[in-house]
């Protein structure tokens, strides 16, 4: 029982890890970033590459991945997303195009494979990351075997959620972001530089995706297509929680994680995912604005 609860918690925290960045970009900016999963994938590849080329472990990869994906996010915002504010479904489609581009960039080793140059760690194949010894194996609490790496994921997710909360609710920039969520035009009229704040928000959300990628790399094999299913899961969490609500995302990730854990223990993983999709559909139908939607004006 305790084991199942723990597995559910760890699944939930993985969901939240991926969803956190999305919650910020979707909630704050009204941008559905379908390339978010690919940013997670880039984070995972940063871990692979920094392991191969720098001999660095997962802990070192976290800040590198954050910086790399945040910069990439900044680029995406400047080149594409900036032109599409207010066109929600178009951002979905355009970022889907970007997602394909990023996937192929990794597969083609940044187009260098055409010139016969190969970068170790990139390309269409599968990559593996070895987890540091401290995070391997299990420990026992109350008769339940607890996986160390999953515990680490839960810990990192908790820290990131807390940091995000601090930035959003305890800093000047966070207050500006929240003002933009409420009413972008009014915020602009009050002298907030909306374009700049949006760019920063997008970069921060992308950076969170990068960290999520580092955590995923120790958990699953790394390959160019890994992002697609993640972005879907992330979306379901964000939409179910309610746009613009950090608390909603945290709770819905927890709920979906536990449902997944229990159904998987009772039946199998495939059915567990199906049940999660079913629950999300039901909740959107019952509460179209999500569990914790902001009150309208």
């Amino acid at each position, binding site marked *: 029982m305790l084991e199942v609860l723990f597995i559910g918690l760890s699944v939930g925290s993985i969901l939240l890890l991926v969803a956190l960045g999305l919650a910020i970009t979707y909630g704050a900016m009204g941008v*559905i970033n379908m390339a978010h999963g690919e940013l997670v994938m880039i984070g995972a590849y940063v871990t692979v590459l920094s392991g191969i080329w720098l001999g660095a472990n997962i802990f070192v990869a976290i800040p590198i991945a954050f910086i790399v994906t945040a910069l990439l996010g900044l680029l995406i915002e400047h080149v*594409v997303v900036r*032109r*599409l504010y207010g066109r*929600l*479904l*178009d951002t*979905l*489609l*355009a970022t*889907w*195009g*970007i*997602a*394909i*581009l990023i*996937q*192929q*960039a990794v*597969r*083609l080793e940044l*187009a260098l494979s*055409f010139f016969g140059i190969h970068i170790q760690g990139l390309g*269409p194949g599968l990559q593996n990351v070895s987890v540091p010894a401290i995070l391997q194996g299990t420990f026992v609490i109350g008769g339940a075997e607890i996986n160390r790496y999953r515990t680490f994921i839960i810990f990192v997710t908790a820290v990131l959620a807390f940091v995000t909360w601090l930035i959003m609710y305890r800093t000047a920039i966070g207050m500006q972001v929240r003002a933009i969520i409420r009413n972008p035009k009014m915020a602009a009229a009050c002298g907030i530089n909306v374009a700049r704040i949006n760019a920063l928000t997008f970069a921060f959300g992308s950076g969170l995706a990068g960290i999520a990628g580092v955590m995923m790399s120790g958990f699953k094999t790394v390959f160019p297509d890994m992002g*697609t*299913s993640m972005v*879907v899961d992330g*979306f*379901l969490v964000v*939409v179910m929680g309610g746009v613009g609500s950090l608390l909603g995302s945290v709770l819905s990730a927890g709920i979906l994680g536990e449902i997944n854990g229990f159904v998987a223990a009772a039946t*199998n993983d*495939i*059915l567990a*995912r*199906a049940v999660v*999709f*079913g629950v*999300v*559909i039901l909740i*959107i*139908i019952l509460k*179209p604005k999500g569990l914790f939607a902001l009150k309208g004006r």
Partner: protein
Amino acid sequence: MSPTRRIEWGIYAAFIVLIMLAPLAMDPFWLNRVAKYLVYGMLGVAVALSWGYAGILNLGQGLFFGAGAYMLAMSLKLASTTSLRQGSDKPVPDFMLWNAEPGAPTELCCINKASFLWLPFQNQWFGVAMALILPVAIAAIIGTIVFRKRIAGVFVSIITLALVLLVRLVVIDAQPITNGFNGLTDLGWFKVAGFEFDPYVVQTYYLVAISLAIVLAGARLLVETRAGIILQAIRDDENRARCLGFDVPVYQTFFFAVSAAIAGFAGMLYVVVSEFASPTFMDLTFSITMVVWAAVGGRSSILGACIGAILINIISATVSETAGFAEAWKAIIGLIFVLVVLYLPRGLAGLAHDFVARVVTRKLPSSSRELRATNTSQLAE
């Protein structure tokens, strides 16, 4: 008929003549391929109807396509020679016997718990009917619930997206009756009045081409009816239409169901042409790819979306066969897509439309001048 409208129907006619003449220039291998792309073109029509005209971005169109495909594939599976040679008097799918528990009966009724579901599919026309009925029924149920609750925009997209993934997982999980990941392969041929539609003969191509022509013209006529015009009014401003007294959810559900029927029909034809049905039809990637075709061709043009689908597939088949370009082509598609969304939101059809409009107005000034002249002369009298 206004000149623009006449030109538009002229383009439809030209396109239909073109696909009818295609067999003159192609070998059976390419003909089979193009038939598949025409089926994709039909999916383009379905997307244009629901997205362009009803304003519903369905990210789960693959659900309807897959439902249509599986329903006919179940019938054709039972018609295959391997199913007939399984040692029982009635045909039985081979995979069911491979997966059966030792000592299980070999009759379709009771090999496993749900295998009786296959019984009615012994009649091919049941499969054909279900390929249309099932998608429409699913669409009607979802549509009624979603549109009555006034769920709109991205939330509809998320619901359809979650639904298609849910069904995909259920199909995969129901391995004993659906053959799971592997899908239904090794199918028999579609038969009408003793004629077998071998996928590589010209008759099969015409089956698809004529179907597409009917779907195209039908969809175009449908959006010109009163209901179609009301639907576009709803897309442009839902509240206004509601205040004018129209029952908004009924129109939305109706067109959603029509779009589902077209997608289901396309799935059915795809099985005839390609001889398999698989859960990949219900992958998210495939559903979004359909949207990409429609966007590039022109989301609010039925023919545009159709041509977009056919064109992208023909080009990608040609390009990706050039060594080394298979992956690069995908990247180019991604790039095209970003550019189309940014700079060409109405797609290729938008370009064509502007061009036609310019040609027509260049002709028009002279005639309108005459008109004004007669008007003033009438006033003078």
